[in-house]
């Protein structure tokens, strides 16, 4: 689609101004998500067909300034410097002054611009009147009022793209810009008094020293309840019956066709229990290999990302950062490190990639190591709930409490032992907003399709390798080598060594194997904690390597193994004394 006739259109604006909603409005559903070359900053690219023209639309990462203060802003600066046929500068009408600073920086680079004065509905609610015509007159570029979430003003905005012209002004110094902006604000903006709404009060309460923490705990507890409710519902009502009804006959047919045994049968269908397939325990490519990612894990991944996208778009995450800042500060991080940790609860890979928002290599090392040690991903959690949960909720609680304590204790240790300091939090807290369903659905689709593309091949590969190791007898050898550690330190049987070692490929699959060994509750909890905290899965391992480099990766792995064995032994001691 990217022919010589296609023109380049940049969408530029501060974070949280509704740029993404505008992007989905003008490009529709066909968008590409990619990383800017040489960075991990992601951006979206889509296409707009209008009259005879095709536009390549690029959603530039949100930036407050083109004098970069972080990596996203560096990418924004580079994208703007590369130039474009037209830039749509998206301004938040409720914070016009600060938004105009970025607009000035873009316009002085001689890019033809059109201004979308977005969130005009919210500005009206807040008692802010902006004279868009006057603003257009003063800035010498088209200014169109929009409400991206509802689509208001979008077609008028696109109609005016041909009117975009570079502004022939000489660049201003920083002080001159603020002075010029001050004059513009005086002329175009009027503010009326208005009463506080419910959302305003909620905004203040969310950062209050008492209510904020209470709301934080309630949001986390509520989120987990919702994720479990939706995930279990999808499994019990929809996916499991679907698999049983349609896939079981086909898989059984394949089993018969392969003669009910032999190497190929073991690899494709796996072991039969009482002459039939057990989707959780057979461990064949066509049985457990599809059942684990599609039925047991995907529903939780889906419901997790639905809840996370809602919290993100509603504007809660920065407030959670405020609530967690004091704790994270003592772990060498600042409050915003809670966001990568939350993402890690979905999948460690995006969680570790998101540690890029942190400023120093020290913070990124601590945050990434903590995620891969103590943050269980949705796949692993689905299997914890499925396997350990079969013993009772309190055993699941033991696993979660152990992981949380490990997160805090290890964070404090790393902060105390590594030279350096905890950076300070500086974060804008956007107003609470009712999210756009369309933008949320779009983001959810990107995340779920990413999961499906990545997880299914890895699970299949993992199960294939497990079969190979089994067939060649390597599993036995490995188990015997690792047995002293597992038996002596953790009180686990020899057979538990192989699944924990195989956790390198997929921890969810490994936990599924542990579930088939007939362990006692204490043994299962110890094995689960050890498995969760030790070596990361292969995808996480690769991302850690890319993010930290070889030397720091080795340090991180050593920390993980030490932490996993320590936590496993601690749980064994505590449980055997309290039972």
């Amino acid at each position, binding site marked *: 689609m990217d022919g010589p006739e296609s023109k380049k259109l940049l969408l530029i604006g501060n974070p949280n101004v509704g740029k993404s909603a505008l992007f989905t409005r003008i490009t529709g559903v066909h968008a590409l998500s990619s990383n800017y070359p040489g960075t991990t900053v992601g951006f979206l690219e889509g296409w707009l067909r209008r009259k005879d023209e095709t536009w390549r639309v690029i959603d530039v990462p949100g930036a407050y300034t083109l*004098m970069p203060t972080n990596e996203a802003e560096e990418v924004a600066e580079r994208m703007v410097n590369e130039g474009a046929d037209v830039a749509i500068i998206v301004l938040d009408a*409720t*914070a016009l002054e600060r938004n105009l600073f970025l607009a000035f920086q873009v316009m002085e680079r001689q890019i033809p611009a059109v201004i979308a004065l977005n969130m005009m509905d919210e500005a009206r609610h807040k008692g802010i009147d902006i004279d868009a015509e006057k603003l257009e007159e003063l800035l010498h570029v088209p200014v169109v009022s929009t409400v991206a979430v509802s689509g208001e003003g979008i077609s008028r905005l696109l109609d005016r793209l041909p009117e975009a012209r570079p502004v022939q002004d000489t660049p201003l110094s920083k002080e001159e810009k603020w002075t010029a902006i001050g004059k513009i604000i005086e002329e175009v903006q009027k503010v009326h008094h208005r009463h506080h709404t419910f959302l305003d009060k909620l905004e203040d309460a969310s950062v209050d*020293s008492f209510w*904020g923490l209470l709301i934080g705990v309630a949001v986390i507890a509520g989120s987990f309840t919702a994720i479990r409710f939706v995930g279990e519902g999808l499994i019990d009502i929809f996916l499991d019956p679907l698999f049983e009804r349609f896939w079981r006959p086909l898989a059984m047919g394949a089993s018969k066709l392969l003669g009910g045994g032999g190497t190929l049968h073991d690899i494709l269908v796996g072991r039969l229990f009482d002459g039939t397939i057990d989707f959780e325990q057979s461990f064949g490519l066509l049985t457990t290999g599809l059942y684990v990612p599609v039925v047991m894990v995907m529903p939780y991944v889906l419901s997790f990302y639905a809840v996370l996208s809602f919290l993100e778009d509603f504007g809660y995450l920065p407030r959670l950062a405020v609530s967690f800042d004091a704790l994270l*500060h003592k772990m060498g991080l600042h*409050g915003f490190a809670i966001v990568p940790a939350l993402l890690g609860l979905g999948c460690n890979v995006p969680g570790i990639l998101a540690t890029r928002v942190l400023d120093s290599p020290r913070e990124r090392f601590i945050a990434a190591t903590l995620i891969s040690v103590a943050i269980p991903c949705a796949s692993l959690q689905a299997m914890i709930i499925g396997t350990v949960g079969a013993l009772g909720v309190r055993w699941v609680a033991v696993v979660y409490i152990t992981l949380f304590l490990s997160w805090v204790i290890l964070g404090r240790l790393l902060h105390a032992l590594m030279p350096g300091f905890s950076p*300070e939090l500086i974060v804008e*807290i956007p107003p609470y907003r009712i999210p756009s369903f369309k933008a949320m659905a779009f983001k959810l689709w990107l995340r779920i399709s990413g999961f499906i593309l990545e997880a299914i091949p890895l699970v299949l590969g993992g199960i294939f390798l497990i079969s190979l190791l089994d067939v060649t007898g390597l599993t036995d050898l490995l188990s015997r080598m690792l047995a002293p550690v597992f038996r002596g330190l953790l009180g686990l049987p020899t057979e538990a060594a192989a699944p924990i070692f195989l956790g390198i490929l997929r921890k969810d699959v490994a936990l599924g194997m542990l579930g088939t060994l007939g362990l006692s509750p204490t043994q299962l909890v110890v094995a689960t904690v050890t498995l969760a905290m030790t070596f990361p899965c292969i995808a996480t391992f690769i991302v850690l390597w890319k993010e930290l480099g070889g030397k720091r990766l080795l340090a991180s792995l050593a920390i993980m193994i030490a932490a996993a064995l320590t936590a496993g032994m601690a749980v064994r001691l505590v449980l055997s004394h309290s039972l």
Partner: protein
Amino acid sequence: MTPPTSGGGKKLSLRDLANGEEGQITALPSSDGCAERLEALGLRAGKIVKKVSGMPFHGPVTLLLEGRQIAIGWRLSSAILVNPMKGRLLPHGRPGE
């Protein structure tokens, strides 16, 4: 843009303000790498801010600047000096409490 000397008189840091109290910014940290970021968020000398809250255990201070909340780490908030003002109106018209 020179801050008026009337009002509270004594210069305080942002975190010394009471919740709901307003102050006019007189000085921001200059040597720190944070300075650019604070300015990009609209925090400049002469601006009037209202302290919304401070989190316990040396948690961040949340302030209101022109109708928008911004949270700032505890240590950094002590490097932002303000001139307390009582009973003044914010530029956006929200009455001071």
